[in-house]
C-alpha cells in the first residue's frame, strides 16, 4: 500500500490542487484511506474540470450523437464518420485558450499538436486543420502580439507536419481582450477497418511509451490553466508553458500509422492534458483492466523528478500503446526506424487497479475506473442573465442611419475594412493549405473542399469533404440559444455553398465560469439550441470540447460555442467558389432579407453597439435554402455561391466581386430601408450566379425546394453597383478589403484611420 500523506497535510494539499473538500472526502472513501501524494495529484487532475467535464457532462447529454454516418461518437479521442467507399474521417476540435494567452506561439502550436494526436490516435492520417480564433481589438499592442503569435504558432506547427490548414475564422472583440480563444480542429482520414480505440486489454501485455522524453514542463497544466479563472497573476504560472516539437510529432504520426498498418498494437492513446495519468487511466477503465506502471522506466529529461511529477507532466509529443509481448520487438523496431524512443513502462493486469511504482515500491494504487467514472458530476445553478431583456428590446430603428448613395457606399467601405470582415489572406498565407495535393477549394471562400484519397499510395477517389468552422459570439451573447443555432446554420450553409451535405459536427464550447449561474445558463441554452437544430437537421455531434473559466477581470467572454462541420461531396470536380465568373451571368438571391440589424457588424462598426436581437432562424427554411443551393451546385449550374453572413448582402456581393475581379450591377427590390436592405444579417440567404441559359434549371430547383428567391441583376463591369444604394469601383474595395488585416497587425493604423485614409 502506498504511503499516505499526513491527515493534516492531505486535505490542505487537496484544496491547493483544486479538489474541493467533498471531492477530497470522496477520494478517501474510494481508497479507504488517506491518499498518497501521487494519488492526490492523479485524482485532482482526473477530476479537474478539464478532464472530467464535471460541470458540463449532464448538459452535453442533450446532443444527438448517432446517425447514418457515425462510426464513433463522443467518448473516444475523436469522433469518426464514414464517408463512403470504405473511407472514414475522424475529427475533433479543442481549445488551447489559456496557454495561448500566456505564450501565443507555443500555446497555439501545442494546441495544434494536441488535437492532431487525438486524430492519429484513432488510426487516421491527419489531412486538414482549421482554427477558430478570438482576440481583443487590434489597436492594442498586446492583442496584436497575441494574434500574430498564435497565427505563427499554428502555421509553425502544422506546416512542419505537412498537414494543410484549410480554414477557420477569427473575430476581434473587446470581450476577448483578457482571454483570447484558440480553438484548433483536426481532421484525419483512414480506411474504416483501421479504426482504433484507446482500450487497454490483454493481461500481461506491455505498456509502451513512445516519443519525447518527460520533463517538468506543463506540470498540472490542465488543472492549473484550464480549470480556473484567468487573472493577471497568470504570468506567474509560466513554467507550465510547453514548447512544441512538431518534428517529433511528425515522426510519431509516421511511426504510429506504420504500427497500425502492420497490426502491431492492441491499443493506442495520446498523452494530452494530465499526461500519462489520464491516458493510462482512461485506457484501463475503458478496458476494465488494471495497469501497473514503473515510473523510473519513463525516460526523463530532467533530474530528480518525483513520481507524481512524472505521472502528471504534460510534456508534448508522447503516445502510449499496448502491445502483446510477441509483437513488442517488431513494434520497437518501427519506432527506432523513425528515430523515436520507445520504452516499456508497465503491464496490463487483471486487478482493475491503476498501480504506480517507483523502484518497485507502490506509490499509488487506485481503482482505475474511479478516476474516469467516479468523477463528481454537478448540476450547476442557472439564472437567465438580466442584461438579455435590455439588449433584446433594443430597436435599431431608433438610430439615425445613412441614407444617400454616398453615405451607404461609405458605410460599405467601412464594413469591408472591419477586422471582422476584411480578407483573412494575411492569416492563411502563413499556413500551408495545399500540401497533400487534395485541397480542391482553397481558403478565402465559404468552406474548404478536400478530395478524399491517399495520394501517396495512388488510392484516389472523386469524393470529397467540405469543412467549415463558425460561431458569431455576438449573436450568442445577445441570445445564446439562437446564436448557437446560427453557428451551426452558418457552417452548414457554407458547406452547402460548395455542394456539401452536412454529415456531422464537432464543437468547442468556450464559456466563462460555470459556477456563476448566469454563465451556466448561457452554456445550457447554447447546448439546447445546438441540440435542437442538430436534431431537426439530422446532424450528429460526434466529438467536442468544453472550455470554461474564460474570463478576465471578472467578466466572462461572449458565449462562444464554435461549431466545426464536415460535409460530404460525391464528386469534387463539381463544386463552386464565391468568385463571380463571367460577365452576363445572372445573380440570384436564394432566401429573403428582413429588417434585422440586431447584433450586426453594421451596428458595431458604425454605431459602436453590440445590442438588439440577433437575426431570426427558421430551421425549416434554412434547410430548404441549403438543399436548393446544394442541388444547384451539384447540378453544375451554380457558377458561384456565397452565403450572406456578417455585413449582409452588400458585403456578400462585394466579396464575390473582389474574388472574381469582376463587378456587378444589381437592384434590391425589398421595401426595406437602405441600411437594412444592404447590411441586415438575415439568415438563410445565399447569392448564386448562373449562366443565363441555366435559369430555367435553377428555377426548377427552387420550385422543388420551395424556397423564396429574387433575381438581383448581372455580373459585369468594374464596379459594384447596387441600384439607388451603392456605387463604387472594384479597386477601391479590393485595396481596403485585402490589406486591412496586415496593416492593423503591423500597427500601422487603426481601423478608423485606415478608413479615413
Amino acid at each position, binding site marked *: 500500500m502506498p504511503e499516505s500523506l499526513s491527515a493534516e497535510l492531505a486535505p490542505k494539499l487537496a484544496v491547493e490542487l483544486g479538489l474541493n473538500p467533498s471531492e477530497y472526502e470522496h477520494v478517501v472513501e474510494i481508497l479507504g484511506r488517506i491518499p498518497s501524494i501521487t494519488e492526490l495529484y492523479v485524482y485532482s487532475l482526473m477530476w479537474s474540470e478539464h478532464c472530467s467535464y464535471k460541470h458540463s457532462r449532464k448538459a452535453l447529454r442533450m446532443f444527438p450523437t448517432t446517425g447514418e454516418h457515425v462510426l464513433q461518437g463522443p467518448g473516444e479521442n475523436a469522433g469518426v464518420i464514414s464517408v463512403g467507399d470504405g473511407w472514414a474521417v475522424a475529427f475533433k476540435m479543442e481549445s488551447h485558450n489559456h496557454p495561448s494567452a500566456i505564450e501565443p506561439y507555443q500555446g497555439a502550436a501545442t494546441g495544434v499538436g494536441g488535437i492532431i494526436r487525438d486524430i492519429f490516435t484513432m488510426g487516421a492520417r491527419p489531412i486538414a486543420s482549421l482554427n477558430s480564433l478570438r482576440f481583443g481589438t487590434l489597436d492594442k499592442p498586446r492583442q496584436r502580439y497575441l494574434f500574430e503569435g498564435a497565427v*505563427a504558432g499554428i*502555421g*509553425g506547427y502544422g*506546416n*512542419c*507536419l*505537412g498537414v494543410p490548414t484549410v480554414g477557420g475564422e477569427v473575430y476581434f472583440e473587446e470581450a476577448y481582450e483578457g482571454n483570447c480563444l484558440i480553438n484548433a480542429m483536426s481532421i484525419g482520414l483512414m480506411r474504416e477497418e483501421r479504426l482504433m480505440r484507446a482500450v487497454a486489454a490483454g493481461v500481461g501485455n506491455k505498456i509502451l511509451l513512445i516519443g519525447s522524453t518527460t520533463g517538468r514542463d506543463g506540470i498540472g497544466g490542465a488543472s492549473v490553466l484550464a480549470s480556473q479563472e484567468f487573472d493577471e497573476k497568470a504570468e506567474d504560472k509560466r513554467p507550465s508553458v510547453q514548447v512544441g*516539437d*512538431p*518534428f*517529433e510529432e*511528425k*515522426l510519431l504520426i509516421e511511426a504510429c500509422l506504420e504500427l497500425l498498418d502492420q497490426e502491431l498494437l492492441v491499443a493506442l492513446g495520446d498523452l494530452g492534458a494530465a499526461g500519462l495519468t489520464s491516458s493510462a487511466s482512461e485506457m484501463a477503465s475503458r478496458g476494465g483492466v488494471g495497469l501497473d506502471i514503473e515510473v523510473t522506466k519513463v525516460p526523463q529529461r530532467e533530474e530528480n523528478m518525483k513520481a507524481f511529477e512524472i505521472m502528471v507532466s504534460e510534456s508534448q509529443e508522447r503516445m502510449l500503446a499496448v502491445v502483446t509481448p510477441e509483437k513488442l520487438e517488431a513494434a520497437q523496431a518501427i519506432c527506432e*526506424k*523513425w*528515430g523515436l524512443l520507445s520504452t516499456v513502462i508497465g503491464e496490463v493486469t487483471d486487478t482493475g487497479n491503476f498501480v504506480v511504482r517507483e523502484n518497485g515500491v507502490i506509490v499509488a494504487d487506485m481503482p482505475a475506473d474511479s478516476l474516469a467514472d467516479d468523477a463528481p458530476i454537478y448540476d450547476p445553478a442557472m439564472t437567465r442573465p438580466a442584461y438579455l431583456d435590455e439588449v433584446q428590446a433594443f430597436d435599431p430603428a431608433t438610430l439615425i442611419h445613412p441614407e444617400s448613395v454616398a453615405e451607404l457606399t461609405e458605410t460599405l467601405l467601412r464594413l469591408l475594412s472591419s477586422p471582422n470582415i476584411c480578407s483573412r489572406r494575411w492569416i*492563411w*498565407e*502563413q*499556413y*500551408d*493549405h*495545399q*500540401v*497533400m*495535393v*487534395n*485541397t*480542391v477549394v482553397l481558403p478565402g471562400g465559404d468552406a474548404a473542399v478536400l*478530395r478524399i484519397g*491517399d*495520394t*501517396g*499510395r*495512388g488510392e*484516389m477517389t472523386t469524393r470529397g469533404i467540405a469543412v467549415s468552422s463558425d460561431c458569431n459570439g455576438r449573436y450568442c451573447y445577445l441570445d445564446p440559444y439562437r446564436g448557437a443555432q446560427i453557428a451551426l446554420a452558418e457552417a452548414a450553409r457554407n458547406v452547402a455553398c460548395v455542394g456539401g451535405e452536412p454529415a456531422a459536427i464537432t464543437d468547442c464550447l468556450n464559456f466563462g465560469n460555470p459556477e456563476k449561474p448566469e454563465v451556466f445558463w448561457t452554456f445550457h441554452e447554447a447546448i439546447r439550441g445546438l441540440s435542437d437544430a442538430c436534431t431537426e437537421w439530422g446532424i450528429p455531434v460526434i466529438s467536442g470540447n468544453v472550455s470554461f473559466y474564460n474570463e478576465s477581470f471578472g467578466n466572462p467572454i461572449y458565449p462562444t460555442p464554435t461549431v466545426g462541420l464536415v460535409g460530404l461531396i460525391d464528386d*469534387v*470536380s463539381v463544386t463552386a467558389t464565391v468568385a463571380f465568373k463571367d460577365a452576363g451571368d445572372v445573380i440570384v438571391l436564394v432566401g429573403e432579407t428582413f429588417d434585422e440589424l440586431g447584433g450586426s457588424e453594421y451596428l458595431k462598426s458604425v454605431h459602436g453597439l453590440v445590442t438588439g436581437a440577433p437575426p431570426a432562424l427558421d430551421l425549416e427554411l434554412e434547410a430548404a435554402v441549403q438543399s436548393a443551393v446544394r442541388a444547384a451546385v451539384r447540378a453544375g449550374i451554380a457558377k458561384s455561391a456565397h452565403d450572406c453572413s456578417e455585413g449582409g448582402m452588400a458585403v456578400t456581393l462585394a466579396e464575390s466581386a473582389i474574388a472574381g475581379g469582376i463587378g456587378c450591377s444589381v437592384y434590391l427590390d425589398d421595401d426595406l430601408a437602405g441600411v437594412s436592405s444592404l447590411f441586415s444579417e438575415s439568415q438563410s440567404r445565399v447569392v448564386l450566379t448562373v449562366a443565363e441559359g441555366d435559369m430555367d434549371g435553377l428555377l426548377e430547383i427552387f420550385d422543388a425546394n420551395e424556397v423564396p428567391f429574387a433575381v438581383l441583376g448581372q455580373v459585369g463591369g468594374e464596379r459594384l453597383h447596387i441600384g439607388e444604394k451603392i456605387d463604387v469601383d472594384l479597386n477601391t474595395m479590393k485595396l481596403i478589403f485585402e490589406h486591412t488585416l496586415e496593416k492593423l497587425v503591423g500597427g500601422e493604423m487603426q481601423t478608423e484611420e485606415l478608413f479615413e485614409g
Partner: protein
Amino acid sequence: MRFGVVIFPGSNCEQDVVHAAHHLGFEAEYVFHRETDLAGFDALVLPGGFSYGDYIRCGAVARFSPVMSEVIRFAEAGGPVMGICNGFQILAEAHMLPGALLRNDTLKFICRDTTLRVEKSTCQWLDTAPGTVLHIPINHNEGNFICDHVTLSRMEDNDQIVLRYCEPDGSRAEGGSAPNGALEDIAGVCNERGNVFGLMPHPERVVDPATGGTDGQAFFTSIVGTLAKVAG
C-alpha cells in the same frame, strides 16, 4: 521512367511528388533516407518538408543522412536530381548547388501562388521556352536565396539560373518581384552540368488539374526527353 523520391525524417511532400509522377504516367518510389542503394532509378527528387524539423538550419542535418552520399554519387555520374523547397535547401547545404537560403525577408511563412519566369539555362529538368511565365505556388519560411557576387556572376555566365520570380507579365519589378527577398529574384538554380536542380516553388502541386493547375507538369516530363537524348 522511374523516379526515386527520397524521404528524410520530417519530409512531408513526398506523397505529392509521387502523386504528380503517377498522374503523368511515370513510376515513382519512396527511398528511405537510410537506404544506400539507388539502383534502378532514372531520376531522384528530394521533396519538400521540414527535414529534422529544420532545426539548426534547413537541410543542415538531412545532408548527413546515409542516402546522401549515394545521391551525390548518382549526380556525379550524371544522374538527374531535383530538390524542391526543403530538397533545394538540402542540396545547397550539401554544396551540390550554389548559394544558401535565408529566412524570408518578411519573416513570415508564405504559402501562395507565384508567377515565375523561365530563364535561359542548361537545366536538364526544364525544357520550357525561356521567357515563359508559369504559375506555381511557394510554401516556405526560408526561401530567400543568397550567394556572393563571384558565385552569382559565375551562375549567370554558365546559365545556371533557371527560374526567377516575376510579375504576371513576365517583367521584374524594380524593388524585386521575389516574395521572400531572394537575390536577383532567383527561385531556382542548377549546377554547371545542369543535372542537379533546386527550386523553392512546388511544381508538384500544379500537376493534377483537380487540385491546382498544370504549370508544374513540365518539371516532371522534360527530364524524360533529356534522358532519351542522352541514351539515344
